[in-house]
């Protein structure tokens, strides 16, 4: 029964962690804007946490560079399974305008597997909320697989 409860609450109230990987802040403040009164995702049970070990969903914004890719990998590894990764913004997808800059590796998917991609420069709060909702479908699937 406890297992059932965890499985339901994980989908009904996903906890997110946000990591800025080298974005220009545009996407970061849009992620934060999701939590504030106008969009207020907390009313859907989405909580922003600071500790990767508490989180179900990892939101990554910005390009990966040679220094922060270790940090990103570390945070991803610390998160418990099943977990979901959402890459936000043009930079997180492919490197965006910084693609050719000297210290840029590229998109987030060069380092960790990504489940949902959110385009936009910067991505709008509506799009980010939509992405989390779309990702929950995948989280449910992952959960089912893990249960078997």
């Amino acid at each position, binding site marked *: 029964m406890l297992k059932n409860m965890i499985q339901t609450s994980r989908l009904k109230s996903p906890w997110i962690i946000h990591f800025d990987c080298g974005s220009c802040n545009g996407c970061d403040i849009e992620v934060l804007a999701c939590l504030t009164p106008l969009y207020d995702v907390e009313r859907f049970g989405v909580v922003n946490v600071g500790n990767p070990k508490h989180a179900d969903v990892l939101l990554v914004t910005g390009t990966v560079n*040679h*220094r922060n890719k270790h940090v990103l990998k570390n945070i991803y590894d610390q998160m418990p399974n099943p977990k979901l990764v959402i890459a936000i913004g043009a930079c997180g997808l492919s490197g965006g305008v910084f693609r050719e800059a*000297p*210290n840029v590796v590229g998109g987030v998917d060069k380092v960790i597997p990504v489940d949902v991609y959110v385009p936009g420069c910067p991505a709008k709060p509506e799009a980010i909320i939509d992405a989390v909702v779309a990702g929950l479908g995948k989280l449910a699937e992952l959960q089912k697989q893990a249960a078997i």
Partner: protein
Amino acid sequence: MKTLDTITVTPETVVGEVAKLVTSGWRMITMSCVDLSPEQFEVLYHFDKELAETHLRLTFPKGMAIPSVTPTLFMAVLVENEIKDHFGVCFDGLPLDFDGKLYLEEEVKATPFCKYSTGTKQ
């Protein structure tokens, strides 16, 4: 064509000139490094005093270490480390030296901002 009014300094006189400006109340804004040619770098020191600007220009051959102004002016510490990261310019007597690793990890090509050739990194 716009040009910048600058005071030309040499590696021997730069620390003295900076100290002179600081004692007469000028505030350092930053330094800029430019890759002039395959042989030469140029470092500009930008100063400000009540909205007026003055600039020192230091041109020196690549591979040469120039004296650090950080002991005179602590705010230059990050700027000099940044130039060392980007261009591989060596600063003599730089306290708190990140040794070219302020921004960059080992796997990045050394001195990514150099246009013409790679400066020597000691």
